[in-house]
């Protein structure tokens, strides 16, 4: 294992590109060991210790100390299999390649969830970058460093990482690396230590956020460990490094600013004669050079006049057309448009442009002032997405409540996934103010006691979509909401915790919510055959995710009833439902006419014949997951590859390749 520990370091804050000495300074490192290690010298619990000399910093590599936040994980919190906590410490499985429970796995892969009936539309989709983030994890390390390398140990299906962010001590997020679409193309089918080239920077950080995008992934991606390498910073040098970037780079007039105005001026072959000092540059330009510049450009525009046939400029267009054009802009560009002129300011702050508002892509910039500004403009707000914002206290709950009270009356869609600033009164405000809500998404809200309690959302009666993925809530609240929202179509209760009895939920759904189209109960508890049978009364069901829900429970007739009564089923996930028998598989083949996605991971009684049956009869099938079906996997894999080609179905068939 290469635990980097290069001795020596720069004396003062010179560029971080100095080549370190190759000496490994053992004695110095030995002198300060605060924590005990579990293994030997090279298998420390979570990090490499390094001496914090007073005079100079050290290069060191450290593994994750803890996880602050994550958007999704495959496993459930009380276990340690496939959960986010596995990213802590040294890699346990690397360089082995396979599907191991000692790694961090996320909930989704590929595009399959976007193709499912429960898929949502992004609010203000023009804000999204070319490789949107599907999942993220925020981790912290022990020592502050100036980052030189971030290494991610991927042990299964590498290639999911698209962005690496670092949180500096100036309380700002910097993007250290961003993937280009070409980066995701040549990914080896093997475990790898992924260390992309980082942006040269002088920020000091010990908190990282890794963004993932699953679209190109064949199956789940798994992360074993994350290593942050960099140079530690002694106190003496902190203030030097905190100095503004301009001063430190020691600039000349030409190099310091690469702003748009100077670039434009350069292209016009006009060189402003400026002094080195930034502050007076513009002033001097206006005094000395502006007239010359205007004359030059005046000449050019006269030439242009000859070429162009009409003289219509943007501002001559009618307001509605301008609004339509501007409605395609992402939020950042819209704000920039407002800085051009008074006219554009008026247009770009028109409330019609702020009906759909999403700060999810700007999670690193969202704060209370921004909310305040937006509150002034968004008088016709319908859809709001504040997911991932305010993670480090940038948004205050009071500001959010004020925003909601001002603008929430007509809101139809509200997404507050992973919003750490939410507290009980915020949820109450949602319940009181936003009674026109059709969609409410409150993923990742796992506070204890649960934020969703008693009757705080009882006022909502028009819900069609309720997303409580990985959120703690009280059963009575959910049951009362089910009773009041008869038009409910999409319900997500994955990871909802041991306190919720799914049988009760199922009976409620069968009684009050028969319009249900999609239901996600991944890793929910206490669903029995009786509950499954009651679900069959929701005959509009197109998507049902029962993964890890029933485990060894015997199903009896319930799956047959469900399949018989819900012919519209397109997506059926039965992962690890070990009680499924061969008869059930036969029923799936005969009754699942519309099935497009079928997950049979970990089901023990599958045979060749049943799989062939399903492939033949379910003509619309696109995805079939047969991983860890031990009984079936003992045969050769070529047969599966043949069938996959023959029936045009994506068949997943991984397993742990090493012997126990």
């Amino acid at each position, binding site marked *: 294992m290469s635990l980097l520990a290069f001795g020596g370091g720069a004396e003062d804050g010179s560029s971080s590109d100095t080549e370190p000495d190759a000496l490994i300074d053992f004695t110095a490192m030995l002198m300060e060991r605060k924590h005990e290690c579990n293994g030997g010298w090279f298998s420390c619990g979570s990090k490499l210790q390094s001496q914090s000399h007073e005079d100079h910093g050290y290069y060191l590599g450290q593994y994750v100390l803890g996880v602050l936040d994550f958007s999704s994980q495959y496993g459930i919190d009380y276990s340690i299999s496939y959960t986010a906590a596995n990213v802590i410490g040294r890699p346990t499985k690397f360089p082995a390649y396979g599907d191991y429970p000692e790694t961090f796995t996320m909930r989704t892969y590929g595009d399959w969830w976007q193709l499912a009936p429960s898929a949502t539309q992004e609010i203000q989709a023009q804000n999204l970058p070319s490789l949107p983030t599907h999942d993220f994890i925020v981790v912290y390390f022990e020592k502050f460093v100036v980052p030189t390398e971030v290494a991610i140990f991927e042990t299964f299906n590498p290639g999911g990482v698209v962005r690496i962010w670092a949180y500096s001590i100036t309380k700002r997020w910097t993007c250290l690396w961003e993937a280009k679409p070409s980066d995701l193309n040549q990914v080896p089918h093997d475990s790898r230590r992924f260390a992309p080239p980082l942006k040269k920077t002088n920020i000091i950080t010990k908190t990282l956020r890794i963004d993932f995008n699953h679209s190109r992934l064949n199956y789940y991606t798994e992360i074993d460990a994350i290593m942050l390498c960099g140079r530690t910073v002694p106190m003496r040098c902190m203030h030097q490094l905190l100095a503004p970037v301009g001063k430190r780079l020691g600039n000349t007039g030409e190099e310091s600013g690469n702003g748009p105005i100077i670039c434009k001026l350069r292209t016009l072959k006009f060189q402003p004669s400026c002094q080195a000092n930034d502050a007076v540059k513009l002033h001097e330009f206006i005094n000395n050079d502006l007239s010359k510049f205007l004359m030059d450009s005046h000449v050019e525009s006269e030439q242009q006049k000859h070429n162009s046939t009409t003289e219509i400029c943007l501002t001559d267009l009618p307001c509605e057309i301008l609004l339509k054009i501007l409605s395609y802009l992402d939020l950042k560009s819209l704000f920039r448009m407002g800085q051009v002129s008074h006219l554009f300011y008026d247009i770009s702050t028109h409330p019609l442009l702020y009906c759909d508002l999403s700060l999810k892509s700007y999670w690193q910039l969202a704060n209370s002032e921004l909310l305040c500004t937006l509150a002034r403009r968004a008088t016709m707000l319908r859809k709001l997405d504040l997911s991932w914002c305010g993670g480090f206290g940038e948004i205050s709950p009071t500001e959010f409540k004020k925003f909601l009270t001002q603008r929430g009356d007509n809101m139809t869609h509200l997404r507050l996934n992973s919003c750490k600033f939410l507290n009980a009164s915020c949820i109450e405000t949602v319940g009181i103010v936003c009674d026109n809500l059709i969609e409410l998404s409150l993923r990742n809200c796992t506070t204890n006691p649960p934020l969703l309690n008693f009757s705080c959302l009882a006022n909502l009666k028009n819900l069609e979509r309720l997303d409580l993925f990985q959120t703690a809530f009280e059963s009575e609240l959910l049951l009362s909401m089910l009773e009041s929202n008869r038009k409910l179509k999409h319900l997500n209760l994955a990871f909802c915790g041991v306190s919720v009895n799914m049988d009760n939920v199922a009976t409620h759904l069968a009684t009050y919510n028969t319009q249900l189209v999609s239901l996600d109960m991944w890793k929910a508890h206490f669903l029995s055959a009786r509950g499954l049978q009651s679900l069959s009364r929701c005959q509009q069901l197109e998507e049902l995710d029962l993964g*890890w829900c029933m485990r060894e429970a015997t199903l009896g007739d319930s799956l047959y009833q469900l399949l018989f009564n819900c012919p519209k089923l397109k997506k059926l996930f039965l992962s*690890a439902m070990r009680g499924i028998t061969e008869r059930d598989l036969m029923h799936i083949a005969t009754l699942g006419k519309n099935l497009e996605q079928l997950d049979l991971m970990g089901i023990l009684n599958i045979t060749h014949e049943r799989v062939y049956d399903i492939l033949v009869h379910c003509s619309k099938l696109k995805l079939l997951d047969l991983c860890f079906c031990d009984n079936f996997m003992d045969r050769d894999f070529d047969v599966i590859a043949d069938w996959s080609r023959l029936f045009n179905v994506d068949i997943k068939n991984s397993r742990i390749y090493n012997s126990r």
Partner: protein
Amino acid sequence: MNDYLDNARRNIQRAMNSSYHSLTEAASMAGTLATSTGFQVLSRLMGLKVQVMPTSESPPNSPTPSTAELDLQSTTTFTPDQIRLVSVVCGFPKDIAMYPDYVKGQFGEDAWFRTSTSKADALGVADGVGGWRVYGIDPGHFSRFLMRSCERLAHSADFESTRPEQLLARAYCNLLEQKQPILGSCTACVLTLNRESGILYAANIGDSGLLIIRDGAIVCRSLEQQHHFNTPYQLAVPPPGQGLNVLTDGPECAALLEFDMQPGDILILATDGVYDNVSEELLLQVLSHAAGVTDPVKLQMYANSVALMARSLSFNPNHESPFTQNARRHNIDAPGGKPDDITVVLASVV
């Protein structure tokens, strides 16, 4: 009968002592071979584990022993008034032909784990129920995974060192969360020693157990849980559809105990392979001399002798074992020892 036992014990101990001497000689030779600075480095490092293979000297009248594992824990890690455990492990699988190589963490179908965090030390043993082999299930896999899960969970952020039953329950739930289904059943005994308070907490399901020996007497023993004769309580994950036919006890059935530990106590955590073959008096005789021993090598010798004793007695058809006595109480005739996997975790409180 007692003479025979005494003789056997003396022979074994003599062999142990001679091999102990040659072992320490080998270790000191290794020490002088290393440079002095290297040795200083090694000794200053905390938590260093060194695999010292017992060289060519194996005790003459026993099968190949398992590898000893020494635990050199630097004393500067812990504050002097905090109690901690120095632990060693020894054991034999029942069928050595089936498990010829030593694998850390298991002896045949038995499994064990041992770990320490900044707040507590944790030990555990698990005895896989061998009857599953008939159904094509490897009984050792279940116990091994359970113990490994306990070890990993002990290092998680929300590990409570006063509640080993929670550790056991979470490890059991973790078993159920595996994509690769793990079937089988096992007994288990997990204990944690909270360093600050010096209180030992233990959770036991089944017939494995622990004994605490202080001043030559047993001061604490865990409660053995049996449904019927030779049918202990067990954590189980039955094959799907067989849930009603298989004896399953959940983690909530664990018998809990709490005990104040003092330096000089000896703690033995073992599976039923030991307790069924070696009577408590015999264990006392051997282990009362181990009180106050802090040298892991010497402690290893005691563990080895207990394990060897259990092994040789288990194959002895004339030995009046506790198993025989217990069987007689149930009107069953089962003379001699009871061959079984043997796992001994011996810890000395310092």
